[in-house]
């Protein structure tokens, strides 16, 4: 079991020694069970940091923000940023390293192993509690979540409460870290793409009606894009940049500003947006589930990314987020890549 005091001690040490600018971790939110991100600059504040199965967020997005902020500063503080990561989050860092978006020196990684389990799914929890408000969630030694809610404690087997991604996690411990807390033991996952099977067994028309129903809901708030640590482009293809077309505007300038996707949340446009996003995340998505978590309309976005993750593994033997020195999926090839679909 991980003792959160060890984490606090290390955070305190690196802050005191001035090794890092600040530490990004989790802290208890006043309002409810789920934690919120904590940005700790003062070594005396480290007691705010927590670690429990409710720490569902992927904090690596803040590394992307930090890089953008640093680029805008005149005299940036060159020290690294400390960050608390789980297994999945550490793979996000690996992808950012692989793409040379951040350097290894930019970040001090405090890795926490999920130790056979993982984090909870807030929607599953809400269903179990039937309106009651949970105050505390702990994992006991027998693989049960012990939930303290109004009027006593409830024991629920971990598998019923874990997030879908945790049930299919390829490595529930950090793959890159400066400090590792907890055991580096791997839970055996028999069916890493189980959630997809139901979808894939549907007929073409059933799949189409499923996605039409789901993607028609999309209001294009772009929360999925905002929460994704991999969506770091300065200019996104779905953002229409209006510019004045005058007599002097050259064809090249016009061609560079094609309106690929309409802003209106019509189903046809939503399809293009979500498919483009899925393609851009092919071989990069590390399945942290943030897009689905932040979606205000509960669109199962994770399926799209998971599908391409599955194909990448099946067709090309590629798994995202394990080796920062490996070339990325779409910028590499092998002679023996399948081509049976090509005439």
């Amino acid at each position, binding site marked *: 079991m991980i003792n959160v005091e060890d984490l606090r001690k290390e955070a305190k040490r690196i802050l005191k020694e001035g090794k890092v600018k600040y530490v990004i971790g989790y802290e208890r939110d006043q309002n409810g069970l789920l934690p919120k991100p904590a940005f700790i600059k003062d070594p005396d504040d480290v007691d705010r940091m927590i670690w429990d199965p409710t720490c569902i967020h992927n904090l690596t997005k803040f590394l992307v923000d930090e890089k953008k902020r640093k680029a805008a500063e005149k005299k940036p503080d060159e020290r690294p940023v400390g960050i608390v990561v789980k297994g999945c989050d550490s793979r996000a860092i690996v992808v950012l390293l692989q793409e040379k978006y951040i350097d290894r020196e930019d970040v001090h990684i405090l890795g926490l192993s999920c130790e056979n389990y993982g984090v909870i799914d807030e929607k599953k929890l809400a269903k179990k509690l039937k309106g009651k408000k949970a105050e505390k969630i702990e994992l006991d030694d027998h693989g049960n979540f012990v939930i303290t809610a109004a009027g006593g404690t409830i024991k629920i087997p971990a598998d019923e409460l874990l997030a879908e991604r945790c049930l299919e996690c390829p490595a529930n411990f950090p793959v890159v870290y400066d400090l590792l807390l907890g055991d580096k033991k791997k839970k055996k996952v028999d069916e890493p793409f189980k959630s997809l099977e139901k*979808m*894939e067994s549907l007929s*073409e*028309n*059933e*799949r*189409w*009606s*499923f*996605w*039409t129903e789901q993607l028609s809901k999309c209001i294009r708030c772009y929360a999925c894009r905002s929460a994704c640590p991999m969506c770091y482009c300065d200019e996104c*293809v779905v953002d229409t940049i209006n510019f004045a077309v005058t007599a002097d505007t050259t064809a090249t300038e016009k061609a560079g500003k094609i309106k*690929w*996707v*309409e802003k209106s949340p*019509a189903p*046809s*446009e939503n*399809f*293009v947006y979500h*498919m*483009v996003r*899925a*393609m851009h995340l*092919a071989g990069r998505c590390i399945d942290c589930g943030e897009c689905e978590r932040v979606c205000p309309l509960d669109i199962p976005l994770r399926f*799209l990314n998971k*599908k*391409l993750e599955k*194909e*990448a593994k099946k*067709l*090309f033997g590629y798994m995202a987020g394990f080796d920062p020195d490996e070339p990325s*999926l*779409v*910028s*590499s*090839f092998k*002679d023996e*890549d*399948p*081509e049976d*679909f*090509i*005439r």
Partner: protein
Amino acid sequence: MAENFEPKIVAFLCKWCSSAGSDLAGVSRMQYPPNVIPIQVMCSGSVSPLYIFDAFNKGADGVLVSGCHPGDCHYIKGNFYARRRIALVKNLLEFIGLEPSRFQMSWVSAAEGKKYTQIISDFVEQLKPLGPQTKLRRNQ
């Protein structure tokens, strides 16, 4: 309606091979269906997935991406990248429920005018029974 339906195919053709192949078919006066809108690209590897989605979005009934045979790429390895990327696009389109035969890829060299006409004829034959593509089409 269905029997009179003429599908509209958007074909992304590599400048160095498939486009020249279609040219050969033309100058040799080979007969093939006039349903194709050819778009010359510099390499099949330069075809972004967005081009394909956008073609469907703007009313294509079928999309063809055609490049050089593996090993023949003018840019040495562009078609190898294309092969990977297009495999993913194809799987994604099938996953969301588009008919698999609406999207195809082929290798056509500059000398294969005959193969090009064959591919187009077969593609049109496959698309005719499917009717117009309305799934991804933008409502006008």
